[in-house]
């Protein structure tokens, strides 16, 4: 099978317009202000997302969407990851796929009704992410489900302080894994590959300009090779995410392809975020340098409806 992994003109246009919007409305520096946390900056830009048609991009035209596929969704999710955009935006893209009635789907695509992710901790507990004014929850476990928001939510401090985390008590039964769970996992993998790429860019920019011993630190092989390894991890994760996105729904082994994308993108995001901090030296350990924001977000996404062990089982199951 020959797969073209580079964007077509139309796909490039989508990627460019999303990136342009994010560069203007949601630069990563916004997260230095607590007023932007918890998805607040994204809520302020909500109308722009709707105008771009982001929330119905992968929904069939007959169902009120734009009739594009997982590949285009993955491009958008990757761009969102680069900007550490609130996961509520990703959830809003995923939710119309899970809506079973037309009216709800329409309201989700138009952005009037809001959805957000919640990850299942155990049968009686879940964590809601950036859901301060969410109407619906996408519960992420082994399987996924779109459910009403429970009344009670207890805010709780999060490793990623730019996120609004709330503890939900209720009944969260295990759902069987279906294609929709793989589709969301693919979106999260794409988001993580965006983090891997953004941290690489940040590390390379710093290594090329920061001078010690009379030359840029990027001239030293110890730093250059770290950057090269970041590039390799980022490229492998990105290529696999795009491959899985192109192949999704084409009658191939979606589950193993997505598991592979998720596993490698998680690994690339976490390790590149670590390396980026290290390359920034003491500056990388400070709050004013954005490097820590990528690490915290990568940690958060890595546990959403996924575990290394679960991805491994899906990968091994794929071998006949």
């Amino acid at each position, binding site marked *: 099978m*020959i797969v*073209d992994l580079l964007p077509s003109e139309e796909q490039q246009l989508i990627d460019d317009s999303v990136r342009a919007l994010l560069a203007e409305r949601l630069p990563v520096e916004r997260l230095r202000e607590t007023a932007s946390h918890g998805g607040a900056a994204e809520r302020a830009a909500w109308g722009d997302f709707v105008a771009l048609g982001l929330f119905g991009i992968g929904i069939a035209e007959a169902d009120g969407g734009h009739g594009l596929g997982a*590949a285009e969704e993955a491009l958008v999710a990757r761009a969102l990851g680069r900007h550490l955009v609130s996961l509520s935006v990703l959830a809003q893209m995923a939710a119309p796929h899970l809506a079973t009635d037309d009216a709800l789907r329409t309201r989700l695509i138009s952005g009037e009704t809001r959805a957000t992710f919640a990850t299942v901790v155990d049968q009686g507990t879940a964590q809601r992410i950036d859901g301060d004014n969410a109407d619906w929850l996408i519960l992420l476990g082994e399987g996924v489900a779109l459910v009403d928001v429970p009344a009670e939510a207890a805010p709780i401090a999060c490793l990623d302080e730019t996120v609004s985390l709330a503890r939900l008590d209720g009944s969260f039964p295990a759902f069987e894994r279906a294609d929709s769970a793989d589709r969301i996992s693919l979106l999260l993998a794409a988001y993580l590959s965006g983090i891997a790429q953004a941290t690489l860019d940040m590390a*390379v920019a710093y290594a090329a300009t920061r001078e010690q011993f009379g030359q840029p630190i990027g001239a030293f*092989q110890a730093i250059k*090779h770290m950057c090269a390894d970041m590039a390799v991890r980022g490229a492998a994760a990105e*290529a*696999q995410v795009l*491959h899985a996105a192109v192949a999704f729904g084409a009658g191939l082994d979606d589950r193993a392809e997505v598991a*592979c994308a998720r596993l490698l993108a998680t690994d690339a995001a976490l390790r590149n975020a670590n390396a980026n901090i290290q390359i920034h030296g003491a500056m990388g350990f400070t709050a004013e340098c954005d490097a820590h924001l990528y690490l915290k977000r990568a940690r958060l996404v890595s546990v959403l409806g996924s575990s290394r062990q679960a991805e491994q089982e899906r990968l091994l199951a794929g071998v006949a």
Partner: protein
Amino acid sequence: MRIIGTPELTAFRDQCRTWLGENAPAKPWPMDGEALRDFDLAWQRRQYEGGWAGVSWPKDYGGLGLSLLEQLVWHEEYARAGAPQSRSMFVALSHAGPTLIVQGSEAQKQRHLLPILKGEENWCQGFSEPGAGSDLSNLKTRAEIDGESLIVNGTKIWTTYGHLARWQELLVRTDPEAPRHKGISWVICDMRSPGIEVRPIVTMSGIAHFAQVFYDNVRIPLSNVVGGLHNGWKVAMTTLGFERGTGTIAHQYELARTVDELITMARDLPSSDGRGRAIDDGTTATDLATLRAEVMALRSLAAMTISRGLRQAVPGAEGNIAALYYAELTRRVHAAALDLLGPRGLERTGGHDWPLAFLESFKWGIGGGTSEIRRNTIGERVLGLPKGPSAR
């Protein structure tokens, strides 16, 4: 971003699959010496007679002149069929031949190209020297002009299958006064010339993979210079840009098959504590799942290289990413095989010689550019980082 498929390509794929299914030789194959060379030549001859030689070569020189998409289909089917890799024919088919096609004179092309496709003659590469490995442009082998000849003195090393080759693409210094990249020539060297001595070098796997070649006043006709006197560096570099992702497909399939085989073995073998199957052990499962993920990513990286190849004729330095990934991964896969097998992994018997594959896996991070040089190249030419002291 899409799956590329047309009815024509599908029909072509069926043709490839049918022919390869009926003609690809079955394992085991000779792994060393003249038996290896004779096997490789015979397989090449079979492809020529079957009308499948030189898929990427122009029709004017006996090739098939296929489009890049058709070449990709051929290489995929070749890999899927588990057909033998070109080994002692590799330099002739993938390096010297393509160089001659672009840079050779008409007479050079007429003399050399068809015997390659017909499996009559193979080639080796005389680039590296004891003092010029990663730093290739430091090469010292001299060639002095004497009338219509070059007189070559010096030595080449790590010449893969040098002891089994009929011809050599040889880089020599023809102008010692010129800057190091400028005074080099690319010449066709007859390995049967008087004054050539070839000493095979046995590797850690016990196989004589490569050789050191000594040149003692070896006379080579000036008409064997390719692409102009003193222009050899450029000639050599143009061919290095030929790789558009087709050449690695076979290796990638082979590695994926190996990982699948390991997973299957782990379901059958008892665990080290004897209380279950090896796959039930958490560490083993983690290792194998990770390797499977990485071979899938290797395929995706190759697809990315190919996607770039479909858009631009001369690929950039990004190809080093997939090459580095493969080099590191193949070592881990074969180390994992020995981990899984335990004491059985010491035994060089049976259908799959795991110890041999393990020892052989070390070559990928060294030959054709060490992993460290590849990291430099990725850092400098892909990421744009400043050059280090050694590369200035």
